[in-house]
């Protein structure tokens, strides 16, 4: 192989390597003013958090985009991450109390992200259950989704996909905590 050809081979290899397989953890999403204001306005009582589990058949620990993987912290699951996201928002609003008689638990039922170099989509779903004194008083499924313009270059497309998926957790939490039915159930006697 001549020098020029070797050079270009190295170029292409370098370009591909820059978009190579990575494995990265999902990041905690900070509390938002929108959710905090909504929780203040709703005047819900403080609540604790029960267990967050994964529905049968759903991958609890990975989202794959072009060979790269997004995963929860070691030993954890995306369902547990959803529970932590609830904790972040409730704590910021002063509404998290592990000793409260009211508790929220959930089952992750949908967790997916994909893209085709032109467009990406992601969706997150969970069935949330409210319990009072250990007895279930309310249960409802919630789902959020998003789409974005993807890119041919992997170094751009992969982080974009992971970031869009990551952002769904805060959206699902906000959707649930601002749902009038959920609020009414929380305030119920």
């Amino acid at each position, binding site marked *: 192989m001549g020098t020029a050809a070797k*050079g*270009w081979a*190295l*170029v292409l290899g*370098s*370009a591909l390597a*820059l*978009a190579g397989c990575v494995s990265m953890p999902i*990041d*905690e*999403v*900070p*509390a*938002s*003013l929108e959710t*905090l*204001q909504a929780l*203040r*306005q709703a005047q819900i009582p403080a609540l604790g958090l029960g267990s967050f589990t994964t529905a049968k058949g759903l991958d609890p620990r990975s989202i794959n985009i072009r060979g790269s993987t997004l995963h929860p912290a070691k030993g954890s699951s995306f369902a547990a991450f959803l529970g932590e996201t609830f904790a972040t928002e409730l*704590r*910021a*609003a*002063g509404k998290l109390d592990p000793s409260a008689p009211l508790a929220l638990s959930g089952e992750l039922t949908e967790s997916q992200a994909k893209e085709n170099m032109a467009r990406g989509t992601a969706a997150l779903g969970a069935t949330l259950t409210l319990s009072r004194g250990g007895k279930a008083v309310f249960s409802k499924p919630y789902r959020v989704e998003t789409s974005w313009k993807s*890119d041919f*270059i992997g*170094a*751009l497309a992969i*982080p974009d996909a992971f*970031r*869009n998926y*990551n*952002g769904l957790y*805060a959206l699902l939490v906000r959707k649930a905590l601002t749902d009038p039915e959920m609020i009414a159930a929380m305030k119920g006697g």
Partner: protein
Amino acid sequence: MFLNRRFSASAWTWAMALCAAVLLAAPQAVKAAKFYVDGTALAVKPEEKVVPAAPKPLQILYEFQRDGGPNPKATKFTKPFILEDLKASGGFSSVAETPVEGGAVLSIKFNNVVDPEALKKAKADGFKTGLSFGLFGGTVVEDLYVVTFEYVPAPGATPIKTVVHHKLTTSIGKVDQTTIPGVQYKKADLAVRELVRQVMARGLNNLFADPAFPR
């Protein structure tokens, strides 16, 4: 680089891929990137500076975004700067990330905004820069930031809002440095720290000067 900067990420991907190859053939050819922050327009003049007479506790909610979506890695990197600048402002008696006495909350969203047309140009320029190994062409890219400050003095109160615009300029390859305004930084992290400091000084002063801000 922690900032998911679409401009330079794409320019870098191509330019650096090619530079990686040419480094073996002509190591002296590649010019290091330089970063510029121009705080002239944002600077708070001494005569306009306001510091609340009776600082109160503050709960801070902070997020770094890209095009309105979360960027957790950048949030993690820049949050210490935000907290440091809040405490140094003299405007708050204490700063925490959980509810505080009085219920005052400040939300800061540091949004890196992508201009699609500028991105296309940056990709094209970056490709040319890479092809010439930085010897015969240069690329200048701008990262634009729209930073929204929303302060709620107490539960149920009307938020006080201010928006600050700023930018970080990056040059790669052969570029006439004298045409780029601002202070030059060889390291991106130092440039970002200064950019955050300037945004925080302007944004907080705007809030403190607002007639609705508690005195």
